[in-house]
């Protein structure tokens, strides 16, 4: 079981209101990703759920019982830290067994669970090494192993991949997703990387300045962002925002079109000059100077051979245009 409910949870450090009030339901077995720019309060929110910080107001319920005042160890949650937080003087085996030892399990049960976790995470041949002798990815797996053995009702991940190199990050991302598939345990994952959020989440919570901007599945957020912030944060490269006359003509304050939803067409309504062209092989990203519309990013196929200074016409896909009012809210 791992249903977590936040009811008007607030957190202030002195006069600074880091989280001015959040309501959120996390269902059992869900993979929830908190995403937002740095300083948006996502890590603080995770630490509030973990019990490492005390809430200033509000209620945190875990499986229907009020856990607001419970110490971290009593909440039945396991956390994987950004720095992995492995105990450097203990072997991998002792690191993984530490929570079991603290819980007072007998040696045989400890060994059984450590062996099991090690086999899931491909750590069996490293059990007698110390963390200092492991690579980044292996340390990450040990940290996850230490979380798994406790059989928690939910896992909390605090930017666990940010210390890994790009290639390793992709493979660890897949490993964590697979782990979630096989364990079916609730996971809450904090990241500032929207790619991680999009690829891993069942449900994304977009945070900005301590407030929830939007909650939804990755494709919901991609297809119908609720406001300018979410529209700009989700999706890579960023959505193009167009203000001014063109937006007014379409009856809104700001117009949003994703780079992949602009086609290069000889009879398109928008005209521009190609600035930078990034040829990635599979795709080509074009920065197009479109006069009054501003600079637009356009994603074209890898076959496009346009280069600096070429004049082109652009056609936005009419059903993929997002319109926002003066407050930045989406018009539907």
């Amino acid at each position, binding site marked *: 079981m791992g249903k977590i409910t936040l009811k008007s949870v607030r957190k202030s450090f002195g006069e600074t209101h880091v989280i001015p009030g959040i309501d959120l339901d996390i269902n059992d077995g869900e993979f929830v990703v908190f995403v937002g720019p740095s300083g948006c309060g996502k890590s603080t929110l995770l630490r509030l759920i973990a019990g490492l910080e005390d809430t200033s107001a509000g209620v945190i319920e875990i499986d229907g019982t009020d856990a607001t005042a419970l110490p971290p160890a009593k909440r039945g949650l396991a956390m994987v830290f950004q720095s992995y937080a492995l*105990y450097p003087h203990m072997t991998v085996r002792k690191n993984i067994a530490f929570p079991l030892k603290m819980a007072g399990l007998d040696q045989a049960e400890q060994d059984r669970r450590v062996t099991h976790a090690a086999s899931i995470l491909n750590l069996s041949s490293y059990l007698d090494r110390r963390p200092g002798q492991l690579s980044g990815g292996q340390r990450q797996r040990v940290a996850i192993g230490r979380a798994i053995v*406790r059989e928690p009702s939910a896992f909390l991940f605090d930017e666990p991949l940010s210390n890994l190199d790009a290639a390793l990050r992709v493979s660890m991302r897949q490993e964590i997703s697979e782990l979630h598939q096989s364990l079916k345990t609730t996971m809450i994952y904090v990241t500032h990387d929207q790619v991680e959020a999009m690829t891993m989440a069942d449900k994304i919570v977009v945070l900005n300045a301590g407030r929830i901007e939007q909650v939804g599945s990755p494709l919901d957020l991609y297809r119908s962002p609720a406001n300018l912030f979410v529209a700009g944060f989700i999706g890579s490269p960023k959505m193009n925002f167009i203000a001014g006359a063109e937006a007014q003509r379409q009856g809104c304050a700001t117009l949003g079109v994703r780079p992949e939803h602009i086609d290069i067409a000889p009879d398109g309504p928008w005209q521009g000059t190609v600035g930078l062209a990034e040829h990635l092989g599979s795709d080509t990203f074009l920065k197009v100077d479109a006069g009054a519309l501003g600079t637009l990013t356009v994603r074209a196929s890898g076959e496009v051979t346009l280069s600096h200074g070429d004049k082109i016409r652009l056609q936005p896909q009419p059903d993929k245009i997002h319109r926002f009012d003066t407050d930045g809210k989406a018009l539907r």
Partner: protein
Amino acid sequence: MATKASRSAARLMMAPAVILLLGWMLVPLVMTLWFSFRTYLPLRGGDQGFAGFDNYVRFVTSSAFWPAIGATLTIVLGALIITIVLGVLLALLLDQPMWGQGIVRILVIAPFFVMPTVSGLVWKNMFLDSVNGLFAQVARMFGATPVEWIIDQPFASLILIVSWQWLPFATLILLTAIQSLDREQLEAAEMDGATAWKRFWHIILPHLSRAITVVLLIETIFLLSIFAEIKMTTAGAFGTKTLTYLIYQRVLESQNIGLGSAGGVYAIILANIVAIFLMRIVGKNLDR
């Protein structure tokens, strides 16, 4: 770029410092070695020629030798245990966020800057004195008979004084070690269900092991040669004659430079054995 010319220039420029240091160390060492093989009684005939190993044999077979070793070990071990245990506790305390942290930390270092002679005198006259001392006043306030600290508890008194002097050193080194501990490790242990005591025992203490060894090494080397505190308080009476004090007595009170020098050579050997032994422990710790 270290060319041949610049390397020899560097050597040339370092030479005065190296020669000065070597001379500073070697001249007294050679003199001690030389005198230790001589019969040299300044007030009873002066230098009377070679004595072979007589001085060395006499020094260790003297009835004062083994008690002196015992006294040295008692004071060193007592002070080590107190400074390390209290040092860890004080470091934990000072690590807590509190109002006026900066000032408190400076105050904690203060005893380290007091000269040993001064602290010996201050402790003897202001705290331990059985008539005017603070401890005696407190004892009388409760209607108890004041303890004659220096006479009845000479080792406790000395260990108290020396520990008071060295506690700041231990506290400072251990405090910086505690501050270098990754907070996430403690939080992870807290999530893992470790109580405050278990976090201390399983996480903080192992993290401190290297700093503790360093404190142990440095303090041992300095404590083996404490002298001023003893001179100022018991003056070697009541069984508190340490190896250093015994050597001082042989040279200055018995006016037997040969015998004292032999004792000095023993002290050098002893200090080096401790140093090598402890260096190995530190080296092992640093390898991890």
